[in-house]
Structures are given as structure tokens and as C-alpha cells.
């Protein structure tokens, strides 16, 4: 567990607790939970449920950022995969739908990874291509319409429950455990961090940096595909224009809040997901408080700036203070 949750997570956990406390003040029934039709309901569950797409995206994004990369295309990939899932849902079974959508995500990730790892493009540029073209492709699939479906299997993915836990939340949790087991259960995570820390040195030390980079973009594509399917299942339709719009930014924000440096190197999956939860808790809090949702963007901007300043190499900042506190502890 210590491998998954390093000590540096303290600041994020504190931030989440503070925001939760504020939410509790704003809305007294925030922590109320009730069981209805075999599914838990309540604001907390709502936060988890709505936070799922960004949490899934941040799982892939954190690995990409750990290799000193960035994936701007995840929102567009969500739109593509959501469109594929929605168009196939009523004519094919769930396994086919999932295989097609996740396969498309994999191909998108492979494309990004190919551009970055093989052609040596800057990640921000390489993924910009799919970010621009991807939404067009998604609209090509839906033929410009909002495709709706009624397939109960796919709807269950978005709105069902397993033992009272909403399915999206269970999927996100499963993906977190799976990703964590794969990258931290093996040396893979270390190799990814090495690639991000210094690609050239790692290459010389025998790390297959190209394979690492290719792999993280593919995984990012698959995570985005899953997020796209869940987003489509949630609204029982695919909107190529708006599905996943600006979510790449939220995912990057979640990773940054989670303390992973944009300069590559060390990363934490759990903290990235925690970052996604912090963002969603803030969003829900603003909605519950009755302020117009427009405040979301302003609050997000302030949070980004605050986190950035704390992370800034020029400031010893929060991390420095925390480190010093830790050192002085007996």
C-alpha cells in the first residue's frame, strides 16, 4: 500500500477534507446516504459517480505525464469511442460494443504513441492532431446527429449498481486497482518514471523507452475509451460535439493536483484519482451552494494557479514546508 500512497499525499487528503467540510456547511445533507432499488444515493455517491470519467482519464494521463508527455486528445477519444458504442449498442451485444469501443481507444492511443515514440514528435503537438481531427471523426461516426440507444446492457454500465455501488464507480475502482497492480506490482512503474526522469540515460541503461512511451499512450487511449463508453451510457446517447469536451484539461489538472510533476518522473495513481475527486467535489459543492456553475471555471483557475505555485521549482512552497516539518518530527 505504501507504494500506492506515498507520504506526499498528505496535502491532497487535507485539501479533500477541507472541501468536503465546506460542502457539508453549504449543504447539511451532504453526507446522507440512502439505499433505494439496490443502489446507494446521496451527494457523496453523486460526486464519485460524476467524477468517474475524469478519474479514468487521469489514470491514463498520469502515466503519460510521468514519461514527460501529455495527451491532449483524450476528450476527442472519449467522443469517438462513445459514438462507436452508441451506434453499435442496439444492434450488437455488450461484449462486441465494448470490444469495438476499447479497440478504437487502443488504436487512437497507438497512433499518439507512434507519433511520439517512433516519429519523435513533441507530445503536445502529436496529440493536438487527434484533438483537432478526433471530434470530426466522432461526428463522422454519428453522422452529425446525437445518437441515442436503449440497449439495457449498456445503460446498466452507466446507471446500474453492483452491491449498491454505481457501476461506473466500480469500474473506475477496478481500473485503479488493475493499473496499480500492473505498474507497481512490477518494475513497469519504475521504468516509466525512469523514462520521464531522463529518457536518454534510461535508454543507455537498457530501458526500452520507446516501448514504455508507446505503452502509456495506448493505456491512456484505453482509459479514455472506457470513460467515453461510460459517459455515453450515462446519458443513453453520444454527442460528438460535447462528449468529453475540455475533459482533457480536467484530467491534466487532476494529475497536477495529485502532485505529479509536468516535468515527468515520479507519479502516483491514487493521488491522481484523488485529484479528480477533489475537482468533482468542488464542482458539486459549487452547484449545491446555489452559485451559478459559471463559478466552476474561476475556482478551477485559482486552484490551478495555487497548485502550480506550490509546485514551482522557484518556490520551496508547500512541499518544502511539508518536508521540513517531516524532518523536524522526532
Amino acid at each position, binding site marked *: 500500500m505504501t507504494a500506492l500512497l506515498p507520504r506526499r499525499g498528505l496535502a491532497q487528503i487535507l485539501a479533500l477534507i477541507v472541501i468536503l467540510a465546506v460542502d457539508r456547511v453549504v449543504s447539511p445533507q451532504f453526507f446522507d446516504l440512502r439505499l433505494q432499488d439496490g443502489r446507494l444515493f446521496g451527494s457523496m455517491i453523486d460526486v464519485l459517480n460524476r467524477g468517474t470519467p475524469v478519474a479514468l482519464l487521469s489514470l491514463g494521463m498520469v502515466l503519460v505525464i510521468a514519461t514527460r508527455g501529455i495527451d491532449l486528445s483524450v476528450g476527442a477519444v472519449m467522443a469517438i469511442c462513445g459514438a462507436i458504442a452508441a451506434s453499435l449498442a442496439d444492434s450488437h451485444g455488450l461484449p462486441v460494443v465494448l470490444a469495438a469501443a476499447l479497440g478504437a481507444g487502443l488504436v487512437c492511443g497507438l497512433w499518439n504513441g507512434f507519433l511520439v515514440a517512433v516519429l519523435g514528435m513533441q507530445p503536445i503537438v502529436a496529440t*493536438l492532431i487527434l484533438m483537432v481531427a478526433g471530434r470530426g471523426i466522432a461526428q463522422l461516426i454519428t453522422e452529425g446527429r446525437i445518437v441515442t440507444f436503449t440497449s439495457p446492457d449498456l445503460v446498466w454500465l452507466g446507471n446500474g449498481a453492483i452491491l449498491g455501488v454505481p457501476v461506473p464507480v466500480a469500474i473506475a475502482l477496478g481500473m485503479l486497482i488493475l493499473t496499480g497492480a500492473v505498474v507497481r506490482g512490477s518494475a513497469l512503474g519504475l521504468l516509466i518514471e525512469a523514462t520521464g526522469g531522463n529518457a536518454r540515460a534510461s535508454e543507455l541503461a537498457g530501458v526500452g523507452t520507446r516501448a514504455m512511451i508507446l505503452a502509456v499512450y495506448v493505456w491512456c487511449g484505453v482509459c479514455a475509451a472506457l470513460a467515453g463508453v461510460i459517459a455515453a451510457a450515462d446519458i443513453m446517447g453520444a454527442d460528438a460535439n460535447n462528449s468529453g469536451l475540455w475533459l482533457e484539461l480536467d484530467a491534466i489538472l487532476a494529475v497536477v493536483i495529485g502532485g505529479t510533476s509536468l516535468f515527468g518522473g515520479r507519479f502516483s495513481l491514487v493521488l491522481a484519482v484523488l485529484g479528480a475527486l477533489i475537482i468533482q467535489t468542488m464542482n458539486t459543492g459549487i452547484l449545491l451552494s446555489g452559485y451559478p456553475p459559471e463559478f466552476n471555471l474561476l475556482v478551477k483557475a485559482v486552484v490551478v494557479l495555487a497548485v502550480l505555485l506550490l509546485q514551482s521549482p522557484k518556490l520551496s512552497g508547500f512541499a518544502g514546508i511539508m518536508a521540513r516539518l517531516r524532518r523536524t518530527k522526532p
Partner: protein
Amino acid sequence: MKGLPPVLITAIVLVAGFALCAMQFPNIASTRVVGNLLTDNAFLGIVATGMTFVIISGGIDLSVGSVIGFTTVFVALAIERWGVPPLVAFVAILALSAAFGAAMGAVIHVFDLPPFIVTLAGMFLARGAGFLLSTESVPITAPVYSTVSDFALRMPGGGRLTAIAIIMLVIVIGGALLLQLTRFGANVYALGGSRATASLMGVAVGKMTVKIYMLSSLLAGIAGIVFSFYTSAGYSLSAVGVELDSIAAVVIGGTLLTGGQGSVIGTFLGVLIQGLIQTYINFDGTLSSWWTKIATGVLLFAFIALQQGLVALARRPVAKRAGAVS
């Protein structure tokens, strides 16, 4: 001389594309269509000019679309609700957007943060501030607006060179001169080549960073005013995604995204190519507008791959020569 080939390729693509379109739809080759093309893409041309400076200096500015949105709302509210004379409103918003850009540049330099994430915060901030002012579309009825909208130079063949198209052309030419002929422009290239080297050569890196982002935001402010002329309204959701369009125009125009190489003229050609694709799709009628995005994506890929190849080619002989000298 080094920056010439990519621009030349862009120019060839534009001319060839235009010729192809004109063969299929002879009506495209008229001053009327060209005039409209300039008018429709006036704000994009202005914003992309600023983006060129930022990208050549090795940075990126994701906030420009939001600044345009904020500007249109601010101008509309100032004129219609607060009773401010239009000219005063323009000066105020330009000062505000320049200060906004300067602040972003200062944060990037002082805290040594990636421009990408700082301008992302700026994007949220400007869009959020626009939402706070008004979430509705505010129509502008000031007489200046109808005067400017009606003003146009007649071109032979019945085309109209509108006021906002003229503003764009002036800014593009001014930007090109600023980049090519002044010390400021030379410093922009130096910064993009290598920050450390530029600093050792005596370029005030901090001041330059602030000025470059200030210029980009200022031009985004002007683009916002032009956009409000174009639509005669202010709307906080306007110009969503323009940052991507302008980055695409800059890249298609042959500017290296790693910085150090590029030109304003190339960017202008890039804007025209995007406008041409849109025009073709409008003329065709059966193609849907999402083909614009796909075509732009394909062009982006082609140009970036081309640059990658050119850079790889350029490196080899240099390495050999260096080896021969030593």
C-alpha cells in the same frame, strides 16, 4: 533563408488548393469569395499573428479564445449597459487584456512554470470571468458598429474588402515587420532557439517573456473587438476552440512548434488554407462541417511530419560539418 522552404510549401499548398477548388467551382475564383474569406477569418488571422510570436519564442498561449470571448462580452456590456463610449471601452479592454497577458508572462518567467499550464489557468480564468459578466448573448446596437460593418472598399469584380479584413491585413503586415525587422523580433527567435543562449547573449529573458505574452493577449483583445464587429454581439461562449485553430494555422504556416523558426506570413497563409477548406465545404453543400476538422487534422499531421523530416535532414549535415572542423 532557413525559414523559407516551409513557408514556400504552405504557399504552394494554398495555391494548388485554391486552383483545385476553382476548377470544381469556378465561382470560388472571384474577389467576392476572397473578400468574404478575409472577413470571415479576420479575427483568426489577428489571433494567429500573436500566437506566431509566442510559438516562435518556444511557448504556447491557450488563453486566446477565452480572451476573445471575454472581450466581446465586456465590450457589449460596456457599450450597451454601462453607457461607456465605444472608443473608451476599446481602450479599456485592450489595456485589460494586455495586463492579463503580461501577468501570465510574468508568472511563467518568475515561477519557471510551463507556459502550457499557466495559459491553461488563464483560459479558465478569462472564460470564467466572461461567464460572470453575462451568460447571455448581448446584442450591440451602437451606431459605430453599423458604420464599421457597412464600411468596405470595393474591389474589382464586386468583392468587398471590409473594415475588419483591412484591420487584419494591417496587423499581419505590422506583425511580420515587427518579427523580421526589429530587435524585438530577433530576440523572439533567439528565445525560441535556446533560452540559455539568449540569456547569455544579453537578451532580457524575463522582460521578453512578459512582452511576448502581452502582445499575444493584446492581439486576442483586438481580435475580440473585431469579432464583436463581425457578430454585432457579445457572448461569453464565443470563440471556443479558437486557440486550437490558431495553433493549427501557425503550424501549417511552417512555424516550428519547438520554437526558433517561423514567420507571420506563413501563419497568414495557414489561416487562408483553413478558410479555403471551410469555403470549399460551404460551396460543396453535401459535405458536413466536421470535415473541416478532419481536413485540418490531416494537414496538421502532414506539416508536422514534414517539419520533423526537415529538422532531421538539417541536423545531419551540421553534425558532419562540426565533426570535420574539429
